């Protein structure tokens, strides 16, 4: 029931922009505005803006903050200069995934973690449990609103909304500025495979910044986009979704995220299990699947068959608006996960061929156009 759901600062504004609102993980969120296919293609060609205010913002500080984060996260926090960020994962003792997140070093001894909305409480509990003396942890998720601005025209959208003197951060970097409308964090990261930004402002200023970021629409083509397009965009580029493609039972190595797992950096939670997998190999791998020809769209939890036997199930699936084909991801036994293998996906009782594909299944156009 809508009244029991959590709301972002913009939940009453979205319908004014034509949003269709749905329940998502306990939140009342826009699933689409003009339509998922159009929003998806707008992001690939021009720009789109997503309300990501439901995501969590954690601040961790202190002289031992780096050491602590390096102990609970699997990427190497030590390499981050002030103003830099990295994709990383919070692992349990078995090397399984609690959450995937962005970690930014915003000051010498202060870090911002941006975590999945569905995992805010769990992540906070885990961090609190492991927090040593001298490190401060603050969950400020309710105080911050966030927008993802994604697409080739996203730099123009940001420049139009911010002062001319503002220098856009480089890829995977974050700028922290004060504005007349409160403090801002502007990170050059995203979940779509395009050039883009994740922009955080205080919750009380959310409406001002939403409007300001959309103001350049006649020049930049920026349009509001919902969760439906967010899912098709990230799936096309093979990005995993926690709760679907990531889980506490699978390690990031099985998920194909080895570049973000720095096993040799020293001790961290989950390391022992990862070491074993590096030595013995992983039992299964998260692969991309591309349907052959015109098929119904694959969805999550459809059986995957190889040579007549069920070998797994899809963890994510959808139509790819850019490729005009169905795409999916699934954990398949290592020996079957060879590129080019033909598998079948059982879609409501009918089997359709799909090719095992590398991730990303779709490669966005290069940034310089």
């Amino acid at each position: 029931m809508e009244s029991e759901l959590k709301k972002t600062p913009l939940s009453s504004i979205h319908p004014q922009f034509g949003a269709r609102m749905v329940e998502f993980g306990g939140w009342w969120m826009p699933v689409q505005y003009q339509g998922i296919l159009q929003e998806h293609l707008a992001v690939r060609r021009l720009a789109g803006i997503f309300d990501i205010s439901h995501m969590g913002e954690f601040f961790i500080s202190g002289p031992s903050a780096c050491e602590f984060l390096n102990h609970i996260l699997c990427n190497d926090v030590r390499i981050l200069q002030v103003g830099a960020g990295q994709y990383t994962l919070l692992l349990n003792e078995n090397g399984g995934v609690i959450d995937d997140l962005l970690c930014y070093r915003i000051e010498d001894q202060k870090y911002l973690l941006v975590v999945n909305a569905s995992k805010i409480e769990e992540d906070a509990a885990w961090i609190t449990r492991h927090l040593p003396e001298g490190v401060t942890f603050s969950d400020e998720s309710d105080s911050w609103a966030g927008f993802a601005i994604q697409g080739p025209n996203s730099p123009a959208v940001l420049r139009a909304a911010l002062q001319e003197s503002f220098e856009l951060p480089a890829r995977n970097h974050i700028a922290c500025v004060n504005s007349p409308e409160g403090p801002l964090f502007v990170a050059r990261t995203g979940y779509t495979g395009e050039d883009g930004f994740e922009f955080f402002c205080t919750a009380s200023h959310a409406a001002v910044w939403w409007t300001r970021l959309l103001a350049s629409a006649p020049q930049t083509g920026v349009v509001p986009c919902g969760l439906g397009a967010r899912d098709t965009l990230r799936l096309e580029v093979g990005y995993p979704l926690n709760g679907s493609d990531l889980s506490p039972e699978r390690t990031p190595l099985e998920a194909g995220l080895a570049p973000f797992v720095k096993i040799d950096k020293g001790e961290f939670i989950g390391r022992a299990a990862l070491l074993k997998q590096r030595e013995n190999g992983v039992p299964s791998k998260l692969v991309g699947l591309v349907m052959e020809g015109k098929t119904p769209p694959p969805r999550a939890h459809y059986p995957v068959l190889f040579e007549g036997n069920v070998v797994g199930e899809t963890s994510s699936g959808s139509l790819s608006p850019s490729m005009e084909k169905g795409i999916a991801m699934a954990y398949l036994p290592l020996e079957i996960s060879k590129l080019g293998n033909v598998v079948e996906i059982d879609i409501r009782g009918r089997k359709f061929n799909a090719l095992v594909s590398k991730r990303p299944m779709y490669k966005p156009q290069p940034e310089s156009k």
Partner: protein
Amino acid sequence: MNVPSDLLYAPTHEWLKREGDLATVGITDHAQHELTDVVYVELPAVGTSVNAGDQICVVESVKAASDIYSPVSGTVESVNDALSSDPSLINSDPHGNGWIFKIRIASGADLSHLKSPAQYAEQLGQA
């Protein structure tokens, strides 16, 4: 929502246009709006016999697959092949070029269980 006055309606949001003992069937403007972008239609097989209310085919959007029910008993005479290459016709022209199948109405079958435009509009909460 558009509710054309020359059609009959099932409460499950299919419309029917009768021409003698042949009927054309599709889904309504309300249904396509709820579904959002249609990306795939699993058309029924020509020659299939169904009873009124049987599930007969599937229309898929990005977010969900939706069962379509035959408003009448009969045998499928033809299907709209255009939907294979352009499923979005269901969104852009649900009562016209987005038709899904034509069905030969079973002899003795009557359509009195179907709703008039006014009754369907009332179901939708429209005046």
